[in-house]
Each structure stands twice: as C-alpha cells, then as structure tokens.
C-alpha cells in the first residue's frame, strides 16, 4: 500500500468522503465534503468510486509527497497546482512520480479544493465514513505536518478522460436559489422580502459547520421558542440577532432557531465555496412544486391518492 506524506496542511485540511448518512437517531450528522460535486468530480477523474475519501484543502497551502507513483486530480476552488515543481492543470488527471511533491497554492476565488488520489485515501473509517466532522469530533484528526495518509488499492477501471471542467466558482458575488420555509411564517413578510432582495456578506465566522452572514436583520413576527428540529445543509437559520447562518456539511443534526429558507441542494456546493467578504444574494428557486404550506399539502400532485390539500382543518 502506498501513501501520501503530508508536508504542510495549509490553514485547514481534512479527509472527506460523502459522509455518514442515516445516523441522526444517535445524534450523528452526515458531514462529508462541503462541496460534494467537486469531490465526486475529483474521484471520477482518477477512476475512483465517487464516494472515495479525498483531502479537502481549505484556501490552499497544502503540500504532500507521494510515497510511490500516484495518479491524482485537484478540483473545486481553482488553486495553482504544481507537481514536482511544474505547473499542473486543475480538473485534470495528474501523474505524480514516486517521491515528488504536489503543492496546492491559494485559490484566486473559492475556498475549498479537493485532492483525489487513485485508490482513495484509506485512514480508518468511523461509522462507515472517513470524513472528519468538525462539530461532533468524529473521523480522522485535522491533517498535520508529518501525517501519512494511506492510499487504498487502485480500482479496476482506469481514468477515461484527461480532464473535465469543474463548476464555475463565484468571485465577488454569488446568487443562491432558495426554497422558502420551513419556518418562514415565524418572520414578518418584510423579512422574507428582505432576504430575497438584499445582499448579504459572508463574515469571517465561516467554517464547515456554517457561514455567518452579515446584512439586514430578519425580524420575527412574534415571540416564542421553537422546539429543536432537524436541520439540513443549506438551511438559513436565524438566531435572535436576526442575521442568518447558512449551514454547511457539519451542521448540527437539530437546531432550535427557525429556518426562514433553505438553499437548494444543487447550490449548496456553491455555498461551500463562499469565502469571507463574498456578497451573496438569495433568489426564490423556480420549482414545479410551489410551496404553499399554509394551505395544507406543500407539494401538489395531480395523481395523489391520499386525501390532502383540501378539507384539512387549518
């Protein structure tokens, strides 16, 4: 078994795969790559299963040495990559000779880059996943200089393309689509209007758990306490300060502040690339299922067999 010697982790580097779903009952969140699409792409490029473990590198600065010849790919935030001192392209299949160094510099835009190694990283799994969950403390430790990451056996299939374009990463401003609710009725109608028209700025309080946003306060319609309820990545949870927190991969399983809107799943990856100072706008997602919770059933369905939207006591 070959491996990767970590020479420098940069500001924050962790091992991530697609997480450990299905453990909410014992208080364990899904975790996994913050930008799942970029992790999947990196794995596909090197011929791995999509859920193989990679290094999630936050804001570059990661340096490692290949113990043996390795095939790797770097996706996500487009950081400058060098292999054995020579520039290498992101989103492409890279050959790293035994003993050579691979370096990821600071990305000009975006926040998180993914380094996949053919065979997948193979530190010990916890509850079926090699992801580091920063909130619950599960999974491998944060990567440090001197760590050795074992690499698993190469899969049977080989890389089929030399490169594949990654998703474009926003620079100064990003637009994220949201579905309003589930607790939009806890807020004034003006608060919802504000969320959908005014820009918010990503603050420096921004990690794998979530990003605190600065911008106009979102006022509640009344007082009261919400019993804790299940949370999802992309949830815009609004604490008493009125400034929303955008939850990411390591969000708490449950939370006690109301969620005014949730970023659609296909935009959560983009949300995970927002760096402090980025301006973000929220727009209502076009959906074939208009959300009308107060009328009863949320998702009209022409062929519904169960009694539903009409005739329910309000």
């Amino acid at each position, binding site marked *: 078994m070959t491996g990767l010697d970590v020479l420098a982790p940069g500001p924050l580097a962790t091992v991530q795969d697609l997480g450990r779903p299905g453990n909410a009952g014992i*208080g364990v969140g899904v975790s996994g790559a913050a930008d799942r699409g970029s992790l999947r792409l990196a794995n596909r490029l090197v011929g791995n299963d999509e859920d193989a473990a990679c290094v999630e590198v936050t804001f570059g600065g990661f340096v490692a040495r290949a113990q043996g010849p390795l095939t790797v790919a770097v996706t996500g935030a487009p950081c400058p990559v060098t292999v054995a001192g020579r520039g290498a392209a992101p989103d492409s299949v890279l050959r790293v000779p035994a003993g050579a160094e691979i370096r990821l510099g600071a990305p000009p835009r975006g926040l998180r880059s993914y380094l996949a190694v053919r065979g997948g990283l193979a530190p010990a799994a916890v509850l079926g996943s090699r992801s580091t969950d920063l909130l619950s403390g599960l999974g491998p430790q944060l990567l440090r200089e001197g760590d050795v990451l074992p690499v698993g056996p190469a899969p049977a299939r080989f890389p089929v393309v030399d490169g594949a374009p990654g998703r474009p990463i926003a620079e100064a401003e990003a637009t994220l689509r949201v579905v309003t609710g589930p607790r939009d009725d806890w807020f004034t109608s003006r608060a919802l209007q504000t969320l959908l028209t005014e820009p918010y700025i990503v603050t420096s309080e921004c990690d794998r758990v979530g990003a605190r946003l600065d911008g106009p306060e979102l006022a509640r319609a009344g007082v009261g306490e919400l019993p804790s309820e299940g949370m999802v990545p992309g*949830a815009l949870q609004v604490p008493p300060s009125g400034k929303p927190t955008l939850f990411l991969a390591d969000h708490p399983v449950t939370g006690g502040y109301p969620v005014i809107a949730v970023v659609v799943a296909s935009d959560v990856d983009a949300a995970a690339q927002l760096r402090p100072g980025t301006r973000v706008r929220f727009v209502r997602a076009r959906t074939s299922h208009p*959300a009308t919770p107060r009328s009863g059933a949320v998702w009209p369905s022409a062929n519904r067999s*169960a009694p539903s939207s009409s005739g329910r006591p309000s």
Partner: protein
Amino acid sequence: MDTTTLRVLPCGDTALLVEAAGLDDVLALHAALDADRPAGVVDLVPAARTLLLRFDPGRTDAAAVERAVREAKPVAVARSDGELLEIPVVYDGPDLADVAHHTGLSERDVIAEHTGHDWTVAFGGFAPGFGYLTGGSPRLEVPRRAESRTRVPTGAVALAGTFSGVYPRSSPGGWQLIGHTDLVTWDVDRDPPALLRPGVRVRFVAVEPGQPADSRTARTAGGDA
C-alpha cells in the same frame, strides 16, 4: 393520529419537515416510516414535535415522500417494549439543590423520582450519543439553567424541560446537572457506539461514590425485565 392532517413543510428541495401534535405522534410516525422506509428516503430525524425526512432526489421526489407520510399507518410506540439499560448514578450534581427548589421536592425526593420511573430514549440530536429521555417523572420538569455552562463533564446526568439526559462527552451545556455516571454511553469503537438509541428504556440507579466498579456496570435485559 390522522396523517392526512399533519402539516408537511418544505425544507429545501431534498427534505420535508413533518409537524405533528406532539412527541408521541412523532415517535409513532417515525416507527412506521422507519420500519417501512419509503423508497429514496435516506435519513429520518425525529425531534420533539417534528420528523424531518431527507430524500435522494435521484430516487424519489417530494410529492412521493409526502404521499408516503400521509399513507403511513402510525402505531403508538409501546414504551415497555424497548431494551432496558440500567445507568448507575452518583447524585452529586451541582444543580441538585436548584432542581429541588424548582420542583418543591427535597433532594432525596428528586433522586427518588429520577430513579423511580423508567425513561425512554425518544430521539437524539444534541451530540453523538446524546439521547433525549422522556416519560420519566412529571414532577421533575425544570427550566434550563439561566446561563449555559461552557463545560459540562462527560457522564453528567441532567434535566431540562420534561427531558433527562446523559452528556456523552464533555461539552457546553445548559441543562440542570443532578449527578454523574461512569457508564460510557458513547464509544465509536464499540458496536453499537451509542447505548442511548431511540426506543431504549433507561432506569437510573442511585449508587454511592466509590462503589465497586463491577456493581456499577450497566446491565441490559430483555423486553420484560
């Protein structure tokens, strides 16, 4: 419970939040959907009044998941059916006197109430291995502490609202601490890692500090224990 009257709320485009009348309805619905998991539902997150269903949009959609919820046949969860876990507790918590004050009981009566009723793990969520215990003594309802502690030690046995719980590891926390246990309720290297899983019944047993370790080891027993 009439599932056609449940409030079903969108939670992004890959989850639904179902709001029930109360915890018993949540648990009944959870049990029904967990036993007969609708296709494409990847995680069920029960809480005090809600059940969150996360689904894989490649395998199902919101309309189908909502339909499965409305067609579910919830059955009241019999609280006497679960595995019984005895948890030895030294009742020396720093908030024991405050709990006595809040409840109008003596400290001795607080201990008697806590040990005299079996509790059931309703749901998790605060931290890995933390179970919200319900169904114990109604006389032990207390508010959370006015100020949270930045560090609650591993094994602290606590009360808040109508719930009791055991802190699986050191963490911040705002519950009223009435004692501690040496029982390791969470260990990722054990199968199962969490002793306090939804449905498990819990009986707290008062022990003296320094009581020999073997008698403080939890026993598990079958359903009719």
